[in-house]
Every structure is written in C-alpha cells, then in structure tokens.
C-alpha cells in the first residue's frame, strides 16, 4: 500500500474498514468489562432536570414516543431516567407512538422499569394509558390537538378510554406538559400544532442528529428543555442517582469519540507529510 509518500501516504489513505474494525472493538470492549470513567454534567441536562422537577403529583403529561426502535436504542437512558422521575412524582402519563415500531416499545421499556412500577404501585389504566400509534402524519397530529376524544377512542389494546383521567383532556391545551422522545418524526408537527397553538410546555429527548435543529427551537422558546442523545440520558441518570444503561455505555461513548479524533489526527499528519512531498490531492466536499 505504501508507495511514494511512504508511511505518510499510508496514514493519509488507509482502508476505511480499519476505522470500522477499531470502532467495533472500542465499543464492544468496555461494554463487556466496564472501566467506569467519570463524566461531566452539561448545562442542558441540568435545565431539563429542573424543568421536570416543576411537575406536581397528578399532572397529566402527554408522553409521545416518536421513535423507531433504533431511536430508542439511542435515547434509552433518557427515556428510562425520565420515566423514573415521572413514576416517582406520581405524574399521569398519556403515551402515544409516532412510528409503527412503537408497539414494540412498551413491553421493553416497562420491563426495564418494573421495579419502579412495583415500588410506587404505578398501574396501566390508572396512572398511565397507552393510546398507541396515533401520529401517522401531520393531519393526525393537528386533529388530535384540536379535539382529543374525536380522534382517540380506544387505547392500543382496544379498550375504551372513557372514564379514565383522559376525560379531563379536551384538546392539547389540557396537558400540563408534553414530554417527547424524538427521532424527528412527528415532533415538528407537535411543536406547530400543540406548543405554538396551545402553549403547552414541551421537553424534548432528541437524538444527536436532531440536536442542532432543536437547539434553535430551544433558543426560540418553542421547547422548554432539551436532553441531548445518549449522553444527556447518562447525565440525567447521574442526577437522579440511579445508574442505568447510560452510565454503563459512557466508556464506550468516550472511547468511540477519542478513536475518531485519533483517526483525524493521524489523517492530518499523513495528509501533510504526503501532500508536501508529492503534490497529490485528496478530495472532499469542502472547497
């Protein structure tokens, strides 16, 4: 591989697949036997924690799981930690899905939360109701925001929702808070039709991809709090003092980042050495 340019060229133009292999190793390794590195808490997460603490017992939260299973994999720590807070506070949850894979989530999530459910005797039907997949598109969100009961008649198992705490909900404005976990599915619609129209405070668990966009919304006051990706979740776990998947995966997280940085450094050294010797060029989108 190393022709003219020698080692430098090698450093500048190694086979991509090495990156893949290394990434696999640095992620799987610490997960199988954790190291337990310390972490820092970001201001975003502190704010999120504070916002959730404003909830009172008996408040009704619209809990929208707008994520595929993949999104859940990233948001897991945040989801679990947030729901632990909800359960602890005795908040009532109205759970909705924004993606058809959502039906796989409750089993998984409530299995993780079992101990907490038992400890606070938190029951489906009384304390939380799963209304299922109700957000196929923007129209559905808007309709539901305007008239809840005309669009939701049964929960995800087909039982009627008459005579539950949802009777107090006429439109989106009757929720005390929207807690959203998003891979960017129905979230924009919810901001448009629920937050903007009825002024419900909305806290957001966002995957890293959507974080930049939601930072703008946060700054514009459309969101009240933002929990960023796995890392935010881990920090929240730290704040509520109940370690979970997040903190466990932070080692892998750190190493993953560091390995990319190392690759970047190596690449740059190689790039310099190589291009200085042979006027060779390598290409990317940046002019």
């Amino acid at each position, binding site marked *: 591989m190393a022709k003219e340019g020698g080692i430098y060229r090698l450093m500048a133009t190694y086979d991509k697949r090495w990156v893949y292999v290394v990434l696999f190793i640095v992620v799987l390794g610490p*997960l199988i036997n954790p190291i337990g590195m310390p972490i820092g808490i970001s201001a975003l997460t502190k704010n999120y924690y504070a916002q959730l603490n404003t909830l009172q017992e008996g408040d009704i939260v619209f809990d929208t799981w707008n994520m595929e299973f993949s*999104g859940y*994999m990233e948001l897991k720590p945040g989801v679990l930690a947030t729901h632990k807070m909800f359960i602890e506070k005795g908040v009532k949850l109205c759970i909705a899905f924004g993606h058809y894979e959502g039906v796989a989530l409750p089993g998984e999530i409530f299995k993780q939360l079992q101990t907490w459910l038992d400890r606070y005797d938190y029951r489906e039907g009384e304390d939380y109701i799963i209304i299922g997949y109700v957000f*196929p598109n923007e129209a559905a969100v808007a309709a539901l925001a305007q008239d809840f009961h005309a669009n939701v008649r049964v929960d995800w198992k087909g039982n009627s929702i008459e005579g539950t705490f949802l009777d107090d909900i006429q439109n989106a404005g009757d929720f005390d808070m929207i807690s959203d976990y998003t891979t960017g599915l129905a979230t924009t619609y919810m901001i448009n039709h629920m937050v903007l129209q009825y002024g419900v405070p909305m806290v957001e668990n966002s995957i*890293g991809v*959507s*974080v*930049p966009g939601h930072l703008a919304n946060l700054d514009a006051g459309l969101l009240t709090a933002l929990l960023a990706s796995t*890392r935010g979740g881990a920090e929240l776990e730290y704040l509520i003092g109940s370690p979970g998947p997040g903190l466990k995966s932070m080692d892998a997280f750190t190493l993953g980042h560091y390995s990319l940085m190392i690759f970047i450094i190596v690449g740059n050294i190689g790039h310099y050495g190589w291009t200085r010797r042979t006027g060779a060029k390598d290409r990317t989108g940046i002019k």
Partner: protein
Amino acid sequence: MNEFLQFAAVVVGIFISFAMYTTLYGKPNPLRDWAEFSYLGAATGVSIVISLTYIYNTAILGIQAGDWILIFSIIFGLMMLFRMHPDYSHVSRLPLAFTVGTGLALSLRTQIFTSFIIQINATIVKLWTGVPLEFLYRLTIAISVITILTFFLYTMELSGPLLWTSKVGEYLMYIGFGGIFAQTFMGRLGLFVGYMESVTTPSWKVPYTLASAVICFIAAIIFDRTGLGQKLSAA
C-alpha cells in the same frame, strides 16, 4: 410468549444484526441479503397491520360512534387506491388534491410562525445584558444569521459589502458545520453504543454476541475470497 421463544428471538436478533453489519465489508454476500430481505418483509408486514389498525380505530370506530362524516375518509382512501391502475389513476386525483390541500394548509398555517417569524424574532434581542459572555453569544448569533443569509442570495451578483458578508457567512457556516457534524456523529455513535449495550446486557447474551460477530465476519471474508458471495447474493 414462552421462555424458549423469547430466548430464540434474542439470539436470532443478535445474529441477524451482525449479518447486517457485514455490509461494512463492502462486498456482496448472502448473509447480508438474507438480513435485508427479512427486514423488508417483516417491516412491511408491520406497517400494513398498524396502518389498517389505525384506519379501523379512527374511521370505523368513529363511524360506529356516529361520526358519519368520517365515511368520506374511507371513500377517499379507496379512491386513492385507483392510483395503482394506470388507466384509472385519474380517479385518485380528487383525494390526492384533497390531501395535498389540507397538508399544505396545515404546514403553511404554522410553519411560517415556528420556522420563520419566531426564529427571526428570537434573533432580535438586547445585545448587552450586562453579562459579557451573554453579549458574545448574542452578538455572534446575530452576525452569523445575517451573514449566512447573505451567502444564500442568488438573484444578484455578490459584490462590494455583500461579497464580504457572504464570505464571512461561509466561514461561520463551516464553523457551525464542524459542530453539527460532531453532534450528528454523537447521535449515530450513541445509537450504535446503545444497541451494543442492549446485546451485552444481561451478561448471558455476551457469548452469543461475540460468536455471531466472529462468525459473520469470517463468513463475509470467505464469501468474498471464494467469490461465492457474488454468486449467491441477491443483486
């Protein structure tokens, strides 16, 4: 679902995932295609079931509850299906026009606020609030938004001050991109780590995970070297 089935689901899940990861090897191989087609079949199945359930819960139950106007949703929906037949596809234009119209109205009536007016409004702030850092933040935001906007003007030659601002805008934008790229990477990495976490806890999964990883990796190499991959793969 009994114990064994659950166990089987987990193991199959782990294996099929690593079969999918062999995509990264960059060469065609049947394992990967098997995983891909399984996903396609199953996922499509799920989406059918869920969509029809949604239609049932919302429309049919609605009509039964005396919401007669919802009958239109069924009619329109069925008309939509004429799209499949080339000769009668024009039938589907009515519901299409209807849905496009409503969709347009929904997005326009709010988007203009959330992503235009409110965003502008949020940029108009008191620069000096007494906190130097705050001042820095707000100043930067104001400057960046304006300069970057000028970078995206097309119907006039960029010259004089505009040229200057757009250049600045471009640079600022690349700084932004740096940050955004990092955040995006964090997201994807988080997803990957999260998944790996779920296949390594509880610890009894670990052997299956490692085994699947090794098997799939070696299989990918063999398929590539022997050329079997090319022969057996779907495309």
